[in-house]
């Protein structure tokens, strides 16, 4: 309250000097991003309208993307895979997040460390772990064969299943964090109040905690979706040739077919998918803000 009314400090001349200095100090960042981000992005967008042979302007690349079947299938595979990952992350992350948000015991620190530890390990290590586990001669098949439950190895890798498992594992810590923050924001007295009114544990979760943590669920789904859709290493290793997504298809276009224009179109389609999802998230969030602000105003 007391420092509400503070403006720039005098004297004017010194301000002007620091303003000058600030722009100078800011310029390296602006220039680096202009050269290695803004300019390349512009070139890529321009390239998407160029003929692969002659580089003359054309819409053929977009036409091919929409009609060759393979590309759109890859686009849909990416979307479906990302959606599945988002659902799995949120479903698996919820109990952990609830525990982390509400527990006051020593176990909280242990669970917290366990839940976030994979983040330190890097994507390759984790993906390698899943390869060992899911491979035809891997851990799970080995156990099942040994127990005589199956006669021949189950196809657990190089498919949608393997990629979803691997990506869920990669994204899970982020989902848990965002769900945890949201659940922590719910007043525990609401749960006690519901219990005092006769609600069972299950009803408390069903009617109090779940509805109030919807924003956290939405943000966990969004994070998971965007991370999954843009992941490269996990689908490359666990999906391989058997399950191609946009990221791996873009890589192929660049390094095997050396088709820059078509790679650009695919990259743009991935970017559009991401931006659409983020935009939906922003819209949801601002609407929710408006609603809650309105509800407060009514009181």
């Amino acid at each position, binding site marked *: 309250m007391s420092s509400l009314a503070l403006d720039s400090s005098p004297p004017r001349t010194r301000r002007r000097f620091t303003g000058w200095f600030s722009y100078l100090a800011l310029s390296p960042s602006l220039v680096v991003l202009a050269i290695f981000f803004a300019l390349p992005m512009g070139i890529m967008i321009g390239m998407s309208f160029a003929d692969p042979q002659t580089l003359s302007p054309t819409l053929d690349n977009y036409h091919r993307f929409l009609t060759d079947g393979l590309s759109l299938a890859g686009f849909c595979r990416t979307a479906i895979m990302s959606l599945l990952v988002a659902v799995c992350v949120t479903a698996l992350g919820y109990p952990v997040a609830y525990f982390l948000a509400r527990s006051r015991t020593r176990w909280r620190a242990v669970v917290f460390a366990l839940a976030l530890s994979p983040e330190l390990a890097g994507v390759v290590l984790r993906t390698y772990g899943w390869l060992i586990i899911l491979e035809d*001669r891997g851990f799970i098949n080995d156990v099942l064969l040994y127990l005589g439950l199956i006669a021949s190895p189950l196809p657990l890798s190089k498919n949608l299943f393997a990629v979803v498992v691997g990506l869920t594992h990669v994204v899970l810590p982020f989902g848990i964090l965002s769900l945890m923050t949201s659940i922590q924001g719910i007043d525990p007295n609401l749960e006690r109040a519901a219990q005092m009114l006769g609600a069972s544990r299950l009803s408390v979760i069903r009617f109090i905690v779940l509805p109030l943590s919807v924003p956290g669920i939405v943000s966990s789904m969004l994070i998971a979706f965007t991370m999954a859709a843009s992941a490269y290493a996990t689908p490359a290793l666990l999906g391989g040739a058997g399950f191609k997504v946009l990221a791996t298809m873009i890589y192929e276009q660049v390094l095997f077919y050396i088709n820059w224009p078509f790679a650009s179109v695919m990259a743009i389609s991935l970017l559009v998918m991401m931006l659409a999802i983020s935009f939906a998230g922003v819209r949801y969030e601002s609407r929710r803000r408006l609603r809650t602000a309105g509800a407060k105003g009514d009181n």
Partner: protein
Amino acid sequence: MTRVISILFWLSLAAVLAFITLPLLVVVAASFSPTATVTFQPFEWTFRWYGDLLSNRWLDPFLTSLKIATVVAATSGVLGLLAAYCIVYERLPGSDVLMSYLLSPLSVPQIVKGVAIVLFLSMIGFQGFLGTPALIAAHVVLALPFVTRMVATSLANFDANLDRAAQILGAGKLQRIRHVLLPMIKPGVLSGVTFAFIISFNNIPLSVFLVRPGDSTLPITVINYLEYSLDPVMAAVNVASMAFILVVIFLFEKIGGFSAQIHGGSK
């Protein structure tokens, strides 16, 4: 009924934690096992794979990654600190626009940034730039927005009254920056720098386009190798690289990072 639910809850918690830790344990186990397959049948311990790590085949990419990550962490640390300082602390006119520009790379997937950069380099005929220089530039573009955001957050949390207190006690601008502002935002800057180091060191989606034979990073060397074979030496490489990251985090923490966040005092 309540009992059943609570048992189910604890079971699901345990199952998820098992899911999270399983691949890590498997890799650690594999790194000590003579074959790449991990079975629950007893296996002999071997340290052979760790010995193999010291060959040039793994040492060279490791050193490349280390060099790149160090340069990236230092560069994006300095640039991010300057940028966040100018925008948040000096409140430059148009700071909102400048900030969204600086953070805009965050909304573009890495693989897309990678395509754009490699396309740009080949367009301007700078293919010779591929390898370490291109990797550094691309990783700075990746890390800079993160660092800027982290430093901006700690600057936004900086109590302006501390600055005023120093000023009324006679400290000029540079003295205030040196004695008050920098010590206060140090944890934020250090976590930003650590983060930059880690995302550069572990990066795949950008690096995959920009490496050159003989000038490749550790993760790229590993995944290229993994596509052909599950050699247990890979497990050792991965475990060693994770241990290295832990050491880096520990070192930064020691210099006064994250947990040294200063509490209270100016509430």
